[in-house]
């Protein structure tokens, strides 16, 4: 497949993790006290991989070129709207919806990128932020006929759906893949455990694997090298007579298409769109995922997206009575103290935990979880004297 051994192993590991995710994410038996840590239900698993795609795409731009876009949620939103319109007009089959969402997001990001990439650094961030906020405001106000405004969009019975009417594959309003309902789940019970296998999740996981494979190829290609050159020293690149704009623009459009793909998949899994998914906090979230996992690394964004979406779902579900259960074995005074200390960080306080986590990562671990893993790994390796030699990295002369 054009990958070296290391990358192939990585891809294989991710593929296996995706395949067995319903098992891996469901380690605790049903009804046990720890069951709320299970993440093996379809909705969350779908989100994990879809936001993984979003973060992989963002990483191609931010991780490789260093251009920090604060407006990527706009592409996700545009992709979502395109997908839902395909479902309303053409067919409830997800294939046209996903393809068109990628194309529309690509065209939109070409437009935004062509303008924003005239500037770099913080100006670029502000320009992309401005575009995203503009799209959000317009989706909420003037474009209501297209976007549904505050109520958003969902498929209705009286939508034309030309292809469905002609072919009569299915006239239901559920998203499907040639008749296979995306919500179809198969539950396997093994003792106390219940494992859910969901059609939509596996579709999203396959798409993510393809997306991940493409991202590995981009990282290892000469094109990827050019993007890295832009990050390390754009001025020098210009002095060697190369125009960096086509490269950065290509990276921007690719990452925009990834975002559109994620948006299309979100609609394929849950057929509704609202403008709030274009809000700038959503753009901030994907930045968070990429940084938390490790910008510029292959696996980092997937890890970051998985981590944040998992924590978001799990932490916000914990409430006071669950805390009381956990700390019940302690003396009353200490129990109450612990509950008051922990309570602000759980349930509705999830954003507080997220913010603190994010700050800690940026301050102490700028390379994200991947760097953290490497540091831990080195800690164990250091005991062997043979590993003391320099790691072969050379710093370029300035």
């Amino acid at each position: 497949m054009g990958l070296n051994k290391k990358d192939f192993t990585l891809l294989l590991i991710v593929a296996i993790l995706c395949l067995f995710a319903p098992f891996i994410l469901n380690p605790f038996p049903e009804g046990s006290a720890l069951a709320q840590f299970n993440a093996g239900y379809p909705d969350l698993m779908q989100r994990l991989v879809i936001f993984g795609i979003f973060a992989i795409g963002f990483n191609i731009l931010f991780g490789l070129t260093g251009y920090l876009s604060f407006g990527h949620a706009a592409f996700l939103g545009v992709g979502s709207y395109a997908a839902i319109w395909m479902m309303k007009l053409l067919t409830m089959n997800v294939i046209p919806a996903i393809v068109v969402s990628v194309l529309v997001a690509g065209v939109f990001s070409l437009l935004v990128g062509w303008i924003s990439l005239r500037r770099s650094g913080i100006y670029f961030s502000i320009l992309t932020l401005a575009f995203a906020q503009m799209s959000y405001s317009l989706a909420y106000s003037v474009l209501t006929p297209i976007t549904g405004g505050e109520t958003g969009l969902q498929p209705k019975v009286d939508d034309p759906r030309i292809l469905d009417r002609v072919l009569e594959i299915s006239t239901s309003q559920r998203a499907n893949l040639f008749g296979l309902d995306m919500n179809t789940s198969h539950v396997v019970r093994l003792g106390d455990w219940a494992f859910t296998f969901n059609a939509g999740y596996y579709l999203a996981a396959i798409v993510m694997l393809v997306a991940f494979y493409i991202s590995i190829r981009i990282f290892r290609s000469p094109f990827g090298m050019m993007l890295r050159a832009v990050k390390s020293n754009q001025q020098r690149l210009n002095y060697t007579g190369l125009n960096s704009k086509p490269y950065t623009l290509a990276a921007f459009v690719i990452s925009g298409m990834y975002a559109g793909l994620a948006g299309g998949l979100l609609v394929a899994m849950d057929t509704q769109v609202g403008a709030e998914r274009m809000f700038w906090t959503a753009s901030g979230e994907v930045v968070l995922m990429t940084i938390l996992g490790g910008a510029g690394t292959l696996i980092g964004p997937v890890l970051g997206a998985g981590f944040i979406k998992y924590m978001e779902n799990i932490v916000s579900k914990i409430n006071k009575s669950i805390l009381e259960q956990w700390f019940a074995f302690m003396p009353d005074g200490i129990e109450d103290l612990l509950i008051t200390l922990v309570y602000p960080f759980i349930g509705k306080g999830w954003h507080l935990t997220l913010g603190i986590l994010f700050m800690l990562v940026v301050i102490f671990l700028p390379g994200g979880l991947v760097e953290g893993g490497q540091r831990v790994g080195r800690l164990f390796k250091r005991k062997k004297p043979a590993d003391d030699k320099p790691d072969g990295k050379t710093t370029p002369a300035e």
Partner: protein
Amino acid sequence: MDAIILQILNGLDKGSAYALIALGLTLIFGTLGVVNFAHGALFMIGAFCAVTLSRILTLSHEVIDETKTDFLGNPLKVDVPYIYDIFGQATGDVIIDWAVPISILFAIPVMVGIGFAMERGLIKHFYKRPHADQILVTFGLAIVLQEIIKYFYGANPIPTPAPDAFRGSFDFGAMLGFDPNTIIYPYWRLVYFAFAAVIIGAVFAFLQFTTFGMVVRAGMADRETVGLLGINIDKRFTIMFGIAAAVAGLAGVMYTPINSPNYHMGMDFLVLSFVVVVVGGMGSLSGAVLAGFLLGILESFASMAIVLETLPGINQIIIYLVAIIILLTRPRGLMGRKGVMEE
């Protein structure tokens, strides 16, 4: 004509808020070279200083009022604010009524303290890191501050009224010789504009006419040389950070009667204020103030009914649109200097 004057007036209060926040942002950027995404949170904390003070002032205890009885004939319990006990009822009422302006005195030390803590505790360590890191860490800080406020004050907006004397509106048109009731303007917005003008004037005067300000300006131009002259420029820059925080906080305090404060008001203003700073020119103080008022007024013109008929939705996007056009035609912004954050 009257419609135009009305729109300019309407733009002034929002423009004042933009200008004050953008001024603080530019001060921090110009002195420390840090892009502070938590500045909106400082604005929001300022607003909650006013909320806190008015809550402190109305702290009360129950007293049995012998003169009144409830319908069962029992003596009535009434809540009496502690402040009545200290100053008597008449003075106490005045103090409670003027809670928002009094909060200015309360907010200054609080905001300067928060500013110092932020700079010394966090931002100091980010001078040498890339701008992207600074944006990210202050973005995280903004989320944290916002969530802390949400935890203590809840998610709903908290109405904080202006003093009685400034409630209501006055007929500005009649003063200028137009028909009565054509240009009506709330008193408090005028107060806000005047207040913003005073603060902006004070900051400029401080930088222009004091020795301290002179050193700071020199440090902004060439930090290294000022350091070589044996001046502890870091200390002065920390103080400037405190001042910038106080400016944002005061903008928030005085804004509470115009818009009831909620925990995400800072973020709402921050995005726009960044656009304002970029339009004004990164690192240019006068540019930030000018762009703040300009964009505020432009926004209010864009929300006129006539304009909305021809260009629907333009009021939502005008600021971003202007920012995009300015950045593409005048990359340095309206008054940006050469060499400051060009790339």
